[in-house]
């Protein structure tokens, strides 16, 4: 597993600027929501902040994961990496790991900012940590699904297809159906959009577990497709 970790840390290093920009965005929007510390925060603003940041983190992670293979092929750096004892599956697992670590760091900062905002709004902080878990699960499945599509599509198109896929049951007006709960990312999305600070909302561990299982499934699918792809063909 060492090659996976090495490529994952390399992925993080190569994407340090987008990560830092997202960190700054999460912190600055939290500051903005709190009127830069000058005012008491309205509960609705905290909910809006948490929902908005959840979506941003998932979207950014999806785009960064989708762009990973394309960037490496374009720069031809992938050739030296894949000339080593690294299988295609390990390579993709490394990208997913890197994106997950990035998402975990984002989720942690998101959680800390959320707790700070709840303190200023006199709200309980425990639901924020539940949302943090959902952010992480959502970002991981967003990364894996967009990575899968990026093995055979243009990266921006791949990310867009992946994100559209998550919303598909809503577009089909079938969110209440059982199959929609198993649809990649959809149950998480519904839970995030229903988030409230009252007792009726609680973390849906089933949705998190399904997202974890589906992430593994999409990684396996991505590896199966990527194994058959010519990585040396130049991309534009």
């Amino acid at each position, binding site marked *: 597993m060492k*090659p996976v970790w090495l490529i994952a840390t390399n992925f993080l290093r*190569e994407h340090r600027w987008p990560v830092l920009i997202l960190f700054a965005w999460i912190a600055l929007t939290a500051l903005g929501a709190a009127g830069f510390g000058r005012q008491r925060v309205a509960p609705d603003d905290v909910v809006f902040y948490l929902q908005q940041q959840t979506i941003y983190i998932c979207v950014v992670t999806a785009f960064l994961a989708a762009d990973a293979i394309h960037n490496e092929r374009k720069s031809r750096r992938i*050739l*030296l990496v894949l*000339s*080593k004892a690294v299988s295609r599956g390990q390579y993709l697992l490394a990208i997913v790991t890197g994106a997950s670590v990035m998402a975990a760091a984002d989720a942690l900062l998101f959680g800390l900012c959320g707790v700070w905002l709840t303190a200023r709004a006199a709200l309980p902080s425990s639901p924020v940590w539940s949302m943090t878990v959902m952010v992480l699960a959502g970002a991981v499945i967003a990364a894996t699904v967009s990575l899968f599509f990026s093995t055979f599509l243009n990266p921006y198109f791949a990310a867009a297809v992946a994100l559209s896929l998550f919303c598909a049951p809503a577009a089909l007006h079938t969110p209440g159906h059982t199959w929609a709960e198993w649809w990649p990312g959809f149950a998480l999305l519904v839970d995030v959009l229903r988030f409230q600070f009252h007792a009726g909302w609680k973390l849906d561990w089933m949705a998190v577990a399904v997202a974890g299982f589906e992430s593994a499934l999409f990684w396996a699918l991505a590896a199966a497709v990527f194994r*058959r792809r010519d990585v040396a063909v130049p991309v534009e």
Partner: protein
Amino acid sequence: MTGILDYSNVTKDYGPPWSRRRVRALDSFTLSLERGEIFGFLGPNGAGKTTAIHLALGFMRPSSGTGRLLGKPFGDAATRARVGFLAENAALYHRPAAKLLRFYGALNGLRPERLRLRCREVLQQVELEMEAHRNVARFSRGMQQRIGLAQALINDPELLILDEPTSALDPLARVTMRELLLEANRAGKTIFLSSHLLSEIELICHRVAILNKGRIIKVGNTAELLVSRDRCEIVARGVPANSFEQAQLGDGRVKFSVAAQQQRNALEKVWALGGEVISVNPAHRTLEEVFVELTNQGAGA
């Protein structure tokens, strides 16, 4: 197939089967490398050299045919731990040289202790030990190419696959690279060297293959390939130099070459002029002459 690198009837097409722009990069390509040799791989641009190398490393899959790298089918990840590869105009991550080498070495499963030692050794080999902590982004093209070779050597590979390793180098750097390759070969490594630089290949390769339009048009021992069967070289003394076309005079001897079928007439002429024949040998050609002749034949065919 018993070589260290074997291609058996490999064909590679680019583009989908229904496309009119489908290109055949390799056509029924069969080749076998023997352990311990330096094998030169020649061909004009677009001949399919890089495609053949990329197939061996599993970057792409053949359209048909099979191949084996160190006895395992192409694409086997574990086998690549025993191979070193340098791509044409190698793209490197922008990191300090030593860190970059440790990264590539660790990908091949080298343990930290061994990795530190190998890192020092290869940096010494490529004469960049003083630049170990400098970011490779600030290196010259030649230095980057040497770091590229260092990463290929970091795992002490059995087989080195080098795609145009000297293409961006100045003459001095080329000499250094050539010496490095000869040293690696003396250390027991098999080298598969693709290059446009025929003089380089001629100087260091035991065998060469010439590829044109995806097909091998000649493969053989370098020395034998340079021997001309059409002409012979005659050295004589006691005859005036102007008796033969393009004769060279030196040390009292006259050296000239004639077409093989004219050999008997030329020898009789030497004797008729009262001269003495010292030697008759097949004429030697440069690899460039062989290459141009064969690729032109291929183009005409």
